[in-house]
């Protein structure tokens, strides 16, 4: 079955440095694409390409149908309604739609209907110490613009959010609680229920960064209890250039847009504009139509595999990688060490090799044909919390094999010798 899946990904058959087979373990950065996605994009351009949401000719009808069918596929993957899925250029842009929407509401855009999103002096925005920069900076800057205060939930030495003081961090001054569904460094899956329960008590909006979970495990917006959720196509076997924002319909319909332009409006005069309901109010200007179609194909591909199967496959790989590197002398595994089978960890293993810089580690792995991520993975505050500047991260996906995971561990075992730092 895994062989069948791998056969869907043409890139995996190529060789790299000096003819070595590719061991691709950088899927948390970006995933490879199956034929189903590549073909969907190509076929759109070959047979259906036209401007969407306008025009009365056949091609326009077909293009719009394909565009909206993709919306239905993505909605279905996460248990959402179609009209709650907004296309954005990526997940970062999706977070900015919400953050900038709040900023615009604060400056009066959207009028009384949007007044519920206004931030006032004394309001607080809460994030966590384990956020990707994409789910930190928009909130940090929103706070700076509006006079709100940014607070954060700290993490412990193994990267788990410390929820003991949650009630004193998320108070009735909290307007927004933004947090990741899973860490892109430790792989720890967040206890969403505890956070949303507290947010509900204090009436805060919740924004969930689901970039690392939608591609790897079942995600259902009807049970998560959050208000907004963002995802990225290119991490879920889809194309670059497109992401999606999900939000509760009653919120999306009154959140002011922040990119203004054509296709978003009910009426326009020289001085005023009224907007359509969601999702169109947020989709100004030409959309990345072929990429959207590709994202729909990716959602369909994942649904067909079954997200429970995907999660089980990657949980196994997670154990192989994490238990493997935990045995290596001079290698520090970030995140929980030691096996707690109850703890949910994605197929991610980020490590620090003592006395060897992550770039140098990555170079040795690269020479063995193994592609990993080196650096801070857009999580400088978390790396600072761990008292390190950078790390080396391996991450799995539907096409990753146990041999790939073992190759990572085996190659990592040679690094300290190569640099002459082994005891």
């Amino acid at each position: 079955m895994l062989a069948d899946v791998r056969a869907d990904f043409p890139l995996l058959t190529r060789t790299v440095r000096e003819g070595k087979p590719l061991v691709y373990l950088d899927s948390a950065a970006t995933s490879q694409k199956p034929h189903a996605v590549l073909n969907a994009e190509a076929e759109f351009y070959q047979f259906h390409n036209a401007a969407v949401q306008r025009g009365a000719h056949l091609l326009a009808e077909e293009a719009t149908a394909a565009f909206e069918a993709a919306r239905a596929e993505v909605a279905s993957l996460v248990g959402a309604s179609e009209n709650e899925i907004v296309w954005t250029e990526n997940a970062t842009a999706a977070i900015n739609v919400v953050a900038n929407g709040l900023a615009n509401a604060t400056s009066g855009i959207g009028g009384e209907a949007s007044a519920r999103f206004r931030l006032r002096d004394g309001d607080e925005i809460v994030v966590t110490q384990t956020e990707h920069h994409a789910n930190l900076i928009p909130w940090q800057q929103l706070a700076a613009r509006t006079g709100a205060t940014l607070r954060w939930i700290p993490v412990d030495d193994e990267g788990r959010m410390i929820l003991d003081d949650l009630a004193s961090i998320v108070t009735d001054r909290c307007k927004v609680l933004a947090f990741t569904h899973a860490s892109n460094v430790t792989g720890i899956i967040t206890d969403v229920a505890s956070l949303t329960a507290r947010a509900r008590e204090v009436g805060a909006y919740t924004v969930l960064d689901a970039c690392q979970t939608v591609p790897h495990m079942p995600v259902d917006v009807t049970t998560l209890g959050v208000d907004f959720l963002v995802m990225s196509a290119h991490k879920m076997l889809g194309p670059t250039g497109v992401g999606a924002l999900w939000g509760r319909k009653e919120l999306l319909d009154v959140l002011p847009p922040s990119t203004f332009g054509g296709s978003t409006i009910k009426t326009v005069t020289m001085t005023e504009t009224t907007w359509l309901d969601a999702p169109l109010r947020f989709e100004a200007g030409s959309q990345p139509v072929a990429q959207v179609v590709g994202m729909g194909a990716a959602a369909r591909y994942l649904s067909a595999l079954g997200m429970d199967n995907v999660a089980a496959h990657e949980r196994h790989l997670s154990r192989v990688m994490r238990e493997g590197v935990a045995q290596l002398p001079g290698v520090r595994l970030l995140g929980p060490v030691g096996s707690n089978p109850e703890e949910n960890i994605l197929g991610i293993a980020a490590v620090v090799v003592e006395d060897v810089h992550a770039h140098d580690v990555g170079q040795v792995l690269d020479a063995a044909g193994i592609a990993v991520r080196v650096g801070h993975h857009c999580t400088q505050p978390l790396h600072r919390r761990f008292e390190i500047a950078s790390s080396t991260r391996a991450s799995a996906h539907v096409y990753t094999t146990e041999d790939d995971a073992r190759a990572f561990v085996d190659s990592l075992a040679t690094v300290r010798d190569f640099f002459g730092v082994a005891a």
Partner: protein
Amino acid sequence: MSNLEQMYQQVIMDHARVGHGKGLKDPGLITMGESHQVNTTCGDEVRLRVGVDGNRLTSVSWEGQGCSISQASVSVLHELVEGETLEETERIIDAFRELMQAKGEGLDEEKEDLLQDATAFVGVGKYPARIKCALLGWMALKDAIIQARKDNAS
């Protein structure tokens, strides 16, 4: 020799370990310039300080943390340019940049003579992502000299 071994030649490993010129020094009562450079992809950083006396680079010291390539490169730089004239330093900087752009090929004999130990970095030129590591200290050097000139003019 594999590409990996060509990149991490012993001379590079030695420089990375020893770190010649590491530890910022007060160059004394002469013109001073300092530059802080960060590699944004990995957070590596180097702070490099030069002392210029007339036409001569009398002191080059640095502080920083990073990968073996960036650390070795700034160590080699210290050995090469401390005590040199500004003109000679410019020639060495230009030759090193040229070596980085040579895609793993060597330079002509005259330039290699100029670069001495730094010719060991030839293998880095095959890896575009690592060229920035190797150039980090050199960018700091170039900028520090500009700062020193400003210091002198003011």
